[in-house]
């Protein structure tokens, strides 16, 4: 790898004949690659610029109060993302709370418990959950999951109704709760695949040492595997959270698009991304469009903060969104 560094200049003295074309080719190649990198960074900067630029009418009119105001009434030219932020936070947090233990358990199963053959089948199947498009999650959620939730909610309410979160059941099963469940399934493969990869990096000597001292498999997990990977797993969870915060289409099918704050999970709600997906194609006026750009800016800032947080928590682990 050392030779790969520093580019063509390192080998200048080794040339046996002058090769101007070669040097030119090297420069062109380097230039193209650097250009691609610059393009990536510029795109990112331009994303923020476009959101600020097109959201300007709403930014100058509502200011920072936009974030705390809970009234989203485009027909009265009153817009604030407070209620949308609440819906975004509650549905995503619910997804993270459910998907984290499940994902870690799946990661443990795939990395430490399953026989090789089972692992080779189950691992890719779990990852396939991430390949299902959000439109299918939304459509499936609306047609299949919503009627099921409709039957489930009264039971949960009567059993756990003393907790304010589990209020009276929603009329037809469309609620923040349903959105949270759909998001749980969507971020589950992210958390489980990343934590499986992290658990596989734990040195075998440590695990075998603990087992030789008489630790049971669970004690090896609790004493060795989880402590050594805690930062990486937390970063994976934050990545899952980021994905849940920004999901638009699947959520817009099942959450109900009611921009109000309800304490109960069983009430319909709205999230920033889903609200943009719903209203952007047919805005009331220019201010409405600008407000959606402003709301998008708020979402991007939150999303970037989670990306930075994931990177900072991860520390030495290279936890980034896996592709293969």
């Amino acid at each position, binding site marked *: 790898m050392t030779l790969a560094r520093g580019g063509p200049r390192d080998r200048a003295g080794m040339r046996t004949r002058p090769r101007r074309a070669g040097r030119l080719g090297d420069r062109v190649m380097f230039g193209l690659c650097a250009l691609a990198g610059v393009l990536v960074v510029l795109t990112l900067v331009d*994303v923020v610029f476009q959101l600020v630029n097109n959201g300007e009418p709403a930014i100058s009119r509502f200011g920072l109060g936009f974030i705390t105001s809970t009234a989203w009434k485009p027909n009265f030219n009153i817009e604030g993302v407070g209620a949308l932020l609440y819906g975004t936070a509650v549905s995503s947090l619910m997804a993270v709370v459910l998907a984290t233990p*499940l994902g870690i358990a799946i990661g443990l199963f795939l990395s430490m418990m399953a026989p090789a053959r089972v692992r080779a089948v189950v691992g890719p199947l779990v990852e396939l959950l991430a390949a299902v498009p959000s439109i*299918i999650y939304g*459509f*499936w959620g609306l047609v299949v999951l919503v009627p099921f939730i409709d039957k489930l909610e009264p039971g949960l309410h009567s059993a756990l109704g003393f907790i304010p979160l589990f209020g009276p059941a929603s009329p037809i099963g469309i609620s923040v709760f349903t959105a949270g469940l759909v998001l749980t399934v969507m971020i589950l493969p992210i958390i489980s695949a990343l934590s499986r990869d992290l658990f596989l990096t734990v040195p075998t000597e440590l695990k075998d040492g603990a087992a030789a001292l008489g630790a049971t498999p669970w004690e090896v997990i609790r004493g060795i595997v989880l402590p050594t990977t805690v930062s990486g797993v937390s970063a994976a969870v934050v990545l899952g959270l980021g994905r849940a915060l920004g999901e638009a289409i699947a959520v817009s099918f099942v959450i109900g698009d009611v921009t109000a704050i309800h304490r109960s999970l069983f009430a319909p709600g709205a999230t920033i991304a889903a609200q943009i997906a719903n209203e952007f194609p047919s805005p009331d006026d220019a201010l409405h469009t600008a407000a959606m750009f402003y709301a998008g800016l708020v979402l991007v800032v939150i999303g970037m903060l989670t990306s930075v947080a994931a990177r900072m928590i991860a520390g030495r682990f290279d936890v980034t969104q896996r592709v293969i």
Partner: protein
Amino acid sequence: MSPAETALFERMPFDPTAPLTPSGNLRRRAAVSRFVQTTATAAALFAVAVLVIICYGVAVRGASTLSFGFVIQNPSGLAGGGIFNALIGTLEIVAIATLIALPIGILTGLYLTEFAGPRSRTARTLRFALDIMAGLPTIIVGLFVYGLIVIPQHQQSGFAGAVALAIVMLPLMARSSQEVLLLVPGSLREAADALGVNRWRTVLGVILPAAFGGILTGAILATARAAGETAPLLICDGFGFNQFATQFNPFHGVPSVSMFIFTSYDLPLAQAVTRAWGAAFVLMMLILIANVLARLILARSRAKLGR
């Protein structure tokens, strides 16, 4: 037993004649461990079950609609016909997106592995930018391209949708090509260097061919992801297209499979929803096949690279 032996046993802190089975505390610890293992297995089964339920739900509702005619006919009326124009539109948009994202993604991967040193500050910034880009909600990408292309052109178009999808694909492409380029053995680079080959010819003639399988895998996965995206198309391609005609000009509104499903779920006819399930089934099959294919190619190319 002699008196000396009896005395020896009495001085021992444990009973050496006891059977070797767990008792008391150890039994509890073993039970806890078994419980955790069962729970983890159940969690994995749950995830697989969810996948099966979703696939089954889509297949059972979509398969009845599916016929050869469904794939080669344009939709007619509210509920008749097929999804030919939407399939062509998705192919068109995704092809343009791939044409944009593939070269830029591979070049970015090359920059990170071949031209930037391991401790380069530029490379670290670029990797960070790619991470943030991968974390951008797709609806935000749609808003961005709306401001960048749709507003200046005063028109939503398949091309704008393709640019948005390219931005969704780019970080995936860059990351997968970076990963696979790192797998190319250093000895290949050194051999090329020893022969006095220029860096650019090494990259084009040695490194890229060696990494071809992995890059292809990444490209297929990114394409499959883009083909299922709805949010960017909703914003950038919008509803401005003719639902009943095939549109070959990407600078007009182009129909797509995902938008077809999105628009027909709330149509008043039950047959329209059935037609949407058919479209969902086709989309799902295409994406699952692409994923399985990508995995097979990856396994082969990994074997070739000796990993």
